[in-house]
């Protein structure tokens, strides 16, 4: 309760600052908080990455297991993306099965990876129609400072980049490389009283009533969009975000996702 009131007060404060052209932490509207990416930090995982964006802290782990392909794609691996918003990460998260927020987070990251065809899923076939690799992408949020989706998406592709097939554990032979062919990057923007802000922190997320995530690839094509929030957005705002998002994704890619 006390918490909610404090958040409400901060929300108003943040909106007033934005109306006057500045953000609580001194950032430019089009500026990200500091980003860091640590790779291969979980030895039991086939791939992993821990991404921090400001105080936001997300760990992504990749596990692979042999399993059955879908009947309509007998020669392709399977990708399963899951997000856990564990109560450790935020006073608002609760124990229990995935809710609409964690499901949306997982599905948006998943669509970005799929749409870009970042993973060569045909190379994940072990025996056509019988056995393929199931790729589990698990997003584990440790600290929710806002903009989880950008951190999760960056963590996902960074973790995939250092993923090795666990051939040995399953008595399989062959190359243990997971072929990664693109680098989708998510950029999230909010509109607050007519201003477009990149990388909202969690109070800005609350202050904003609409939000757009744009996932784009090395060739500047887009492989995922998700608008959320209870307010609409003018067409011209979305067109502007499209422009900004693709450009910013390029910067992030260059800095954090060397091919």
């Amino acid at each position, binding site marked *: 309760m006390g918490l909610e009131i404090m958040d409400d007060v901060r929300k108003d404060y943040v909106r007033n600052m934005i109306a006057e052209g500045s953000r609580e932490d001194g950032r430019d509207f089009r500026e990200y908080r500091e980003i860091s990416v640590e790779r291969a930090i979980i030895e039991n995982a086939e791939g992993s990455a821990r991404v921090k964006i400001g105080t936001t802290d997300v760990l992504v782990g990749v596990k692979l297991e042999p399993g059955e392909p879908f009947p309509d794609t007998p020669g392709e691996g399977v990708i399963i993306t899951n997000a856990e918003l564990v109560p450790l990460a935020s006073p608002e998260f609760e124990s229990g099965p995935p809710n609409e927020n964690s499901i949306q987070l997982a599905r948006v990251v998943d669509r970005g990876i799929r749409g870009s065809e970042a993973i060569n899923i045909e190379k994940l076939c072990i025996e056509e129609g019988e056995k393929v690799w199931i790729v589990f992408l698990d997003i584990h949020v440790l600290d929710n400072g806002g903009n989880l989706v950008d951190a999760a998406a960056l963590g996902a592709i960074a973790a995939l980049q250092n993923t090795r097939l666990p051939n040995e554990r399953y008595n399989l032979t062959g190359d243990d490389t997971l072929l990664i062919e693109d680098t989708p990057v998510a950029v999230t923007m909010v509109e607050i009283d007519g201003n477009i802000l990149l990388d909202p922190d969690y109070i800005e997320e609350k202050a904003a009533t609409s939000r757009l995530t744009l996932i784009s690839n090395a060739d500047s094509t887009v492989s995922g969009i*998700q608008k*959320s929030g209870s307010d609409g957005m003018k067409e011209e705002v979305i067109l502007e975000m499209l422009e900004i998002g693709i450009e910013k994704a390029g910067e992030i890619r260059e800095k954090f996702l060397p091919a």
Partner: protein
Amino acid sequence: MKKGEDIEFIKEGKRVDGRGFDELRDIKIEVGVLKRADGSCYLELGNNKVIAAVYGPREMHPRHAQDAKMAVVKFRYNMAPFSVDDRKRPGPDRRSVEISKVSREAVEPVIIKEYYPKTAIEVYVEILQSDAGTRTAGINAASVALADAGIPMKDLVSSVAVGKVGGEVVLDLNAVEDNYGEADMPIAMIARRNVITALQMDGRMTKEEIEKGLKLAMNACHQIYELQRTALLKRYDSSEDRAA
């Protein structure tokens, strides 16, 4: 999935079902089809058959989820088990949970929630037959059902998908185009104000294609808006008739 590998999506400027690039499938809208609900709408979009019902404003349960300043909007998108080729297990799955959220956010901007603090406005959409585009069909039906229920609204929301198929940006994908095409982008908007209330994209498109898609969707939503309005007027007339 090698998407669309063997399918000739476009032939002599026409799509697999004979439509032009900017052509909607047939739409049929019927208002007030259910008796127990406060508002309802049956809608066909091509082979999609959906039905929407609205209950409320009514007391919000559980009480701790009430909002002291406005009504809470709930939205549940649900597929009948027999609505798809492979029977769907009853109950929510991850896909339907996400679509419910996106659909709720698609209609929320037009609802004047402040009029009914502490209440719930509940929207239920059932997909009876599915043929690509069920979420847009559901949003269109929900918008009409909300109006039928007398929920105070600023405007109607209209929805349609665009996508990329055989290299072309086209309107209102059918099942083949949705399954094997290059990209799908469902959109909802307040047509008369060019305000977008829902936007998702999956697949792969360039910025220019997205922009082109948005234009196509805008035009189509204006058409859909007219159909929604007409259906509501017709309902209103017939109610008048009955009352007379």
